[in-house]
């Protein structure tokens, strides 16, 4: 099996997000970057499938500036075999159209039976690239999977996911693209040995020209643009009630009826 995991490097979940002076992006200074948590599920699942299917290869792919190499190294330490860094200024600051097109161009050059992505990146939260990528590659796609069974011989996958008000079980032919939800697995922490071993693994760089893409026209692929970025309205600290349980409950219900008018 040739398994590909697409990952993104994103600010750590603890990051205090500050809007920069352009008012359209965030301040990047001092940010600690990590592998997008949902992409870790994708990498972990890819490695587990490889471990069960002898002769398999896991390739991780990421788009981004030089710092993205750190994220790729983490994935190599988790057990991926190869890493591909799509590194070109022309790839940056685009929407899902651009990202999916660049990824698709790279993936077309590689053998692939299974492509795993995170269900969404926790920076832009768009959750578009998996489905967009599958559409461009003309492959089946299932989002937010939390269970995956592969039958390598018959080139089939059986996946499960939670939807509103139920659980869906879907069977798909391979190759296919799946986006990974929490619950699929518990991503491993690489050991020191894994980290040392990963240093020997190759991170290949590719630019627009290596993918036969015209850097100048790439930006035109994006079909949305950020007009402005703002903080959400701040919630005010409300009323805190303390004291006798029966009294505070009565006070609360009174406030909900008379002040908030929601009961």
């Amino acid at each position, binding site marked *: 099996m040739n398994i590909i995991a697409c990952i993104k490097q994103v600010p750590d979940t603890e990051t205090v997000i500050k809007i920069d002076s352009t008012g359209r992006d965030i301040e990047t200074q001092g940010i600690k970057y990590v592998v997008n948590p949902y992409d870790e599920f994708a990498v972990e699942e890819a490695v587990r499938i490889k471990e069960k299917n002898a002769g398999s290869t896991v390739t991780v792919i990421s788009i981004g500036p030089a710092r993205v190499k750190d994220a790729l190294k983490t994935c190599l330490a988790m057990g991926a075999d190869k890493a591909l860094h799509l590194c070109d200024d022309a790839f940056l600051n685009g929407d899902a159209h651009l990202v999916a097109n660049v990824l698709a161009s790279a993936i077309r050059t590689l053998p692939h039976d299974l492509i795993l992505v995170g269900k969404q990146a926790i920076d832009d939260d768009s959750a578009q690239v998996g489905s967009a990528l599958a559409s461009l590659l003309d492959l089946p*796609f299932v989002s937010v999977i939390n269970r995956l069974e592969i039958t390598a011989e018959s080139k089939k996958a059986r996946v499960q996911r939670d939807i509103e*008000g139920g659980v869906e079980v879907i069977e798909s032919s391979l190759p296919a693209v799946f986006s990974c939800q*929490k619950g699929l697995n518990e991503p491993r922490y690489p050991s020191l040995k894994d980290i040392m071993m990963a240093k020997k693994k190759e991170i290949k760089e590719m630019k627009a020209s290596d993918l036969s893409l015209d850097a100048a026209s790439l930006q035109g692929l994006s079909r949305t643009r950020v007009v402005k970025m703002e903080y959400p309205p701040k919630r005010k600290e409300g009323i805190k009630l303390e004291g006798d349980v029966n009294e505070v409950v009565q006070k609360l219900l009174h406030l909900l009826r008379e002040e908030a008018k929601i009961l």
Partner: protein
Amino acid sequence: MGKGIWIVAEPRDSKLPRVALEMAGEARRLSGGEEVGAVLIGHNLESSVAELEKYGVQKIFLYDHADLTNYNLEIYSNLLSELVLKESPAALMMAATTHGRELAPAVAMKVKSGLASDCIAFPAENAGSLQCIRPAYSGKVRITMEYTGDGGPKMATVRPNQLAMGEAVEGNKAAIVKMEFQKPANVRALLQETKKPESGEMVELTEATIIVSGGRGLKEAANFSLCESLAKALGGAVGASRMAVDAGWREHKYQVGQTGKVVTPDIYIACGISGAIQHQVGMSQSKCIIAINKDKEANIFKIADYGIVGDIFEVIPVLAEECKKMRSGVCA
């Protein structure tokens, strides 16, 4: 550029979810007098047609076929993109449900549309100059998006419970366009089974108007019965903090927060939840937040409209009992 604003309504078990009517209302507001259209795909859609008509939709493209009973990405995205390319509406809205969030990017690619995900507001006055406001960085910021290029319709997925419910338009009649459908051969991913929750299970979190969530303060799985009793008394759903889910007290589908669901109910009651930033991003857009926590310094109180400083094991039973009385019509 096309005309009119469309919504894609996804009926579930032949019923329209509330978000479809929220979108219908918003589409009417944004239409600027142009046509409000809807695409309806499924089977046994009579009541859904009637509802869309009631909420002011003027034209309905109807794909009603037994083989369309279950959503299928390949089939639905092909139908939608063919229709959109032929009719070229100016804008297309879909619900930000699991299916909608998967379907919209596939259609957007095929018709070369810009797509804004999980929108919570549309500040523009008409569909032609559509802008979308959507949260990013787990809700730590809000982005206003606009569309570029000259591709297909401006597309957006819309988060449930964010837009005002549409208003009924008396006497409105919709033109119904019955669409042909033939089941394609070679569909590569097929639904095998949909497991429905056992009867008595509560409302879906993202659509619930009242949510009672439990966290570390509950101490063990069995004590979630406290949250369940309060939710039942209020007719709401039960959520959980990440800690409660990681401890195995509750399944992941009930998790509210960064690696769980973003919920926007009318009332959110946080029981024994300290209110870490990762939890807040999942619930801070609720209309009214009530916190019950022993620790009066807990972060949750900083964003709660109403807080009770107290032991959840004492407070919840009393609150549940009073709510039960209230709902059964006995004045407290």
